[in-house]
């Protein structure tokens, strides 16, 4: 970032920092070969806002303004408390740089737990989204014990469709037909390990 970090994006201090840390500590940390997936923190927001601002963000909650992005960011985190799953910030395990966000979500319009991903412009084409999504999926079917997981992909989001396929997910026409008209999109169903 070239501009100074504004105060509202700096972490809390004192008792509030302790409480935030205790809540964030409940979110599992996932490690992969190149990545660490951890609880989202306030200082990730600027990178998140940059990720969703632009054409790629239209596939991720469709935030139109920075205020919308802020609400989406908080919602992705709040999901952990309500559902026991939610979003991770995807970071470079060597540098700690924020590379993206991956989530097991329960967003408005979702019919089932959703695996979603978004990486920053600089992290594209390196298999980062694949590596992060794979870790989140395995965590969903493993420790979280979910019995189903889908990805909702906009019809014109070719790259996400390709990633879903690379993850071994297959299109589910029945699930697509069951979506409300306004939310209609392509539904990829992920296979639980062991193949059910």
């Amino acid at each position, binding site marked *: 970032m070239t501009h100074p970090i504004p105060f*509202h994006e700096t972490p809390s201090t004192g008792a*509030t920092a302790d409480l935030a840390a205790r809540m964030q500590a409940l979110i599992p940390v996932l490690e992969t070969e190149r990545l660490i997936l951890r609880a989202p923190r306030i200082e990730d927001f600027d990178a998140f806002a940059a990720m969703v601002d632009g054409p790629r963000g239209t596939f991720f909650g469709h935030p139109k303004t*920075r*205020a919308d*992005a802020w609400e989406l960011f*908080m919602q992705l985190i*709040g999901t952990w408390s309500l559902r026991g799953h939610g979003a991770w910030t995807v970071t470079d395990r060597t540098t700690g740089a924020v590379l993206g966000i991956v989530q097991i979500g329960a967003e408005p319009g979702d019919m089932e737990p959703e695996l979603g991903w978004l990486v920053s412009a600089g992290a594209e084409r390196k298999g980062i989204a694949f590596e992060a999504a794979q870790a989140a999926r395995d965590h969903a079917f493993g420790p979280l014990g979910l019995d189903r997981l889908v990805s909702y992909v906009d019809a014109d989001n070719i790259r996400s469709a390709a990633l879903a396929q690379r993850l071994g997910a297959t299109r589910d026409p029945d699930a697509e037909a069951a979506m409300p008209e306004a939310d209609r999109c392509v539904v990829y169903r992920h296979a639980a390990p062991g193949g059910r």
Partner: protein
Amino acid sequence: MSLPPSVPVIETEDLILRGYREEDFEAFARFAASDRARFVGGPQARYDSWRSFMAGIGHWSLRGYGMWMLEHRETGEAAGRVGVIYNDGWHEPELGWHIYDGFEGRGYAYQACRAARRHAAEHLGMNSIMSYIAPDNTRSVRLAQRLGCWHERDVELLGTPCQLWRHPAEQVGA
């Protein structure tokens, strides 16, 4: 269990300030869809309210503080929300209040704000906190006056003209 975990619980004469429960969503969405939500970013469809509801929980995890759900002691119903909000682009943390239909006019907002303001001063290091008020929100102006606040200055909140009211400092420690 109320969410997120570790949200401090504060009891007042008529209310329990606590974290969120899934069953609070009905009352939350009803308020958000009502005309009375026009001062707090609404009215909002139930569909979109889900995002806001979870965002209210997420705020706690990010900041370590947030809005409490107000549980009406006598009936157990969700009576509104009061607490400290600090959204992106805001001037500083704000003490905000939303009272749901049927619980207005009973002094609950006053009661909850006093408790939240004291908690913020004692535990969050936020004394003499502020509240944003839309200029035409006469009910909130009256409550702010009753809480001893003064109209400190006019500001723009994300492009919208708004008044910034300052709360008196609480006596802390002693």
